[in-house]
């Protein structure tokens, strides 16, 4: 298959969901069956993306396919030189894998939602929204320049807003939508400034062109600090979208949206866009920027995992676990384990989507009950859901033979190597702690939901396995969480095709003095990202990390069984002992409250002060001037009444007189006017 055909196919894949959106949103009210059209379109897009991915990964695995055209040509702009904006798409391995993942999950969610959303008043509109979301997500994935990425970035934000607030009759849903939108804007401002810095320096938006210029030693304002700033500012966009601390607060609230949406957007695809962005800009990150990213990621994953320990809402637990896992990926990018970060992005997309769809299946069966303390024993009623949920849980906990083990282990090894090379040991410590907490809270979730005795007898009796259309995505995703798809050896991810041939850490382009020591190379110009020192450290860290993570995960699982299955340790008493910590976790570290009292109240106080300022000072000035004005008015009023009015009245009288005389001409008859026109023309002719 030729390159141009691949490009055309991917453009088709990009625009198919948009077409679905357009058709369904316009005609959805008239034809209630129109959602089937959207279903067909997304299935077609998925098939095409499989073709593209297979061809790219088999025939063009070491070659990027580029396509670009000039969108706006400003010509020669004073002071800036030649200026034009190119748009284009770039197909590299990252892109086609994401293409596959996004389309697969989008398709599964589409199919799943047919049953899940049945009977909703806005059924067709829901599918239209899913369509525009898929379109914008694919846009982010395919683009080769940061401007288009920003545009699709905002489109994704919009569609996420629409879907979170889909049940906008509920106040909580519409509030959550607004919260997500506004919090994301905070990050996007940073990203926008970062883009502007890059554009001001390089006069181009294209990733490749920018990196080429950086590798030639051209950096913004000739200062490494500015390059660091640009990297961190761009990362701010990822902080918003991937729900990293301190902007993670929107994601748990976003669970107000329909559950399949949570699976698609807030677990598998959109939140991964932030990670994808950081992966895209990875080569231009300086050591300082990477350190910031690693710390933010590590802290986020820790804070979110600690919150997830105590939540009782099934979707909230999963939401915080998503935040935590995203923190993992970000941290992994920060420590330079690029390939593992992307690997984890893919595996996480599958098992987290499976978990969310599984929770949706449970919620569906329990008639919209989301509190896990009121569930229990569902294993017998919903065996397929239970099984797939369990496999995904094993994957997220990092148990061997699952995909999650491979990627998570790689990330932990990366942090360990990073710690040994730079002395930042806190990052691996956070990483391993989180691994244990993840195993604990995930098994707590499984046990409380599926094991034990039912706590709500009435609802339990009505529970039933979900329809086939809802179960098949679960099973498929669970199957994809097994190691065999990624590597033949379940203990060594590096030997798999995914990491050995598809995804490779790109060469960094940052000047030598701005890199980590272990990234510096003896060669001049572009060097490899993994120096020998780094390879060595990775190798050294591989087995300790693997053993340690399995032990910790096992401990977490054991603890969960002790507490909730065998009831050896009472969770309540344990919580009593560490009351402050428990409350901290239960109340989500009071972050929402802190924002409430600082930013929101601060804004309110500022507004109130401004209102007071307006009311007293400005109004005082206005009133004072009003008094003066009134005085003047009185004088000028007298003047007006006698002098001006006299004149005006005379004018009016005169005009009236003239009008009366001319009125006869205005007959309202067209032909009379034409006669006048003729005579006017005659006068003109004679005058000339």
């Amino acid at each position, binding site marked *: 298959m030729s390159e141009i055909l691949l490009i055309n196919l991917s453009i088709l894949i990009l625009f198919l969901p948009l077409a679905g959106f357009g058709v369904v949103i316009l005609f959805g009210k008239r034809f209630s069956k129109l959602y089937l059209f959207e279903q067909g379109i997304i299935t077609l897009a998925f098939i095409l993306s499989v073709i593209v991915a297979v061809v790219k990964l088999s025939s063009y695995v070491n070659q990027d396919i580029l396509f670009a055209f000039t969108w706006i040509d400003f010509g020669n702009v004073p002071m800036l030189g030649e200026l034009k904006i190119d748009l284009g798409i770039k197909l590299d391995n990252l892109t086609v894998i994401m293409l596959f993942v996004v389309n697969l999950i989008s398709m599964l969610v589409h199919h799943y939602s047919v049953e899940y959303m049945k009977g909703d008043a806005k059924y067709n509109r829901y599918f239209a929204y899913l369509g525009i979301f898929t379109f914008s997500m694919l846009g982010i994935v395919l683009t080769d320049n940061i401007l288009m990425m920003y545009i699709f970035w905002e489109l994704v934000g919009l569609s996420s807003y629409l879907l979170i607030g889909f049940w906008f009759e509920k106040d909580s849903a519409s509030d959550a939508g607004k919260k997500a939108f506004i919090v994301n804007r905070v990050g996007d401002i940073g990203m926008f400034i970062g883009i502007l810095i890059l554009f001001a320096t390089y006069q181009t938006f294209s990733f490749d062109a920018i990196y080429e210029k950086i590798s030639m030693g051209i950096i913004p304002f000739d200062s490494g600090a500015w390059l660091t700033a640009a990297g961190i500012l761009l990362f701010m966009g990822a902080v918003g979208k991937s729900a990293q601390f301190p902007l993670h607060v929107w994601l748990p609230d976003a669970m107000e949206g329909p559950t399949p949406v949570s699976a698609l957007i807030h677990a598998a695809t959109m939140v991964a866009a932030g990670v994808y962005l950081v992966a895209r800009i990875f080569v231009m990150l300086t050591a300082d920027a990477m350190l910031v990213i690693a710390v933010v990621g590590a802290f986020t994953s820790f804070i979110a995992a600690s919150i997830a320990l105590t939540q009782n809402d099934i979707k909230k637990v999963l939401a915080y676990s998503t935040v935590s896992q995203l923190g993992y990926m970000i941290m992994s990018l920060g420590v330079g384990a690029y390939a593992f970060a992307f690997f984890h992005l893919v595996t996480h997309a599958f098992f987290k989507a499976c978990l969310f769809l599984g929770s949706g299946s449970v919620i569906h069966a329990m008639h919209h009950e989301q509190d896990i303390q009121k569930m229990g024993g569902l294993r017998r009623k919903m065996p397929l859901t239970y099984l797939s949920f369990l496999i995904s849980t094993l994957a997220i906990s990092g148990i061997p033979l699952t995909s999650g083990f491979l990627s998570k282990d790689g990330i932990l090894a990366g942090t360990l190597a990073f710690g040994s090379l730079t002395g930042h040991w806190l990052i691996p410590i956070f990483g391993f702690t989180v691994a244990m907490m993840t195993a604990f809270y995930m098994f707590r979730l499984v046990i409380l939901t599926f094991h034990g005795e039912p706590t709500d007898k009435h609802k339990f009796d009505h529970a039933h396995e979900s329809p086939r259309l809802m179960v098949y995505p679960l099973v498929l995703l669970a199957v994809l969480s097994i190691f065999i798809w990624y590597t033949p050896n379940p203990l060594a991810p590096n030997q798999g095709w995914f990491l050995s041939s598809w995804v490779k850490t790109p060469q960094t382009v940052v000047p030598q003095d701005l890199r980590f020591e272990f990234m510096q190379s003896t060669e001049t110009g572009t060097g490899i990202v993994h120096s020998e020192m780094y390879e060595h450290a990775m190798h050294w860290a591989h087995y300790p990390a693997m053993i340690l993570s399995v032990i910790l995960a096992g401990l977490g699982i054991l603890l969960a069984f002790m507490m909730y299955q065998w009831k050896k340790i009472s969770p309540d008493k344990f919580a009593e002992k560490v009351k402050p910590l428990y409350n901290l976790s239960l109340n989500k570290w009071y972050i929402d409250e802190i924002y409430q009292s600082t930013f929101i109240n601060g804004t309110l106080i500022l507004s109130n002060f401004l209102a007071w300022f307006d009311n007293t000072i400005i109004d005082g000035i206005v009133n004072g001037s009003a008094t003066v004005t009134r005085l003047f008015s009185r004088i000028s009023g007298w003047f007006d009444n006698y002098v001006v009015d006299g004149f005006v009245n005379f004018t009016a009288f005169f005009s009236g007189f003239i009008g009366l005389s001319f009125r006869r001409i205005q007959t*309202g008859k*067209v*032909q009379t006017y*034409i006669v006048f026109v*003729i005579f006017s023309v005659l006068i003109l002719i004679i005058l000339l």
Partner: protein
Amino acid sequence: MIEVGLTHFLVISAALFSFGIYGVVTRKNAVMVLMGVELILNAANINFVAFARYGNFGLNGQIMALFIIILAAAEAAIALAIVLNIYKTFAHVNIDEIDNLKE
């Protein structure tokens, strides 16, 4: 009599133009006004074609005449539709009595 040349055609066109204007101004019936307009357009057309023949413009004049004929067709269709509407509203088409905008 002098040999027929450009001036002859122009004089005919001027005469037709004047008839057209006379028609537009004096007729009460809207359809008659339209006929006057057609006369005016034809007069202009004669001018175009005549200049195309005697001037140094190639066929551009004729093309312009062609376009005018097309426009006249469109104009006639629209105008008659309007006349029909006037008839529906006022039950007559005497445009001297249609001066509602005056008030």
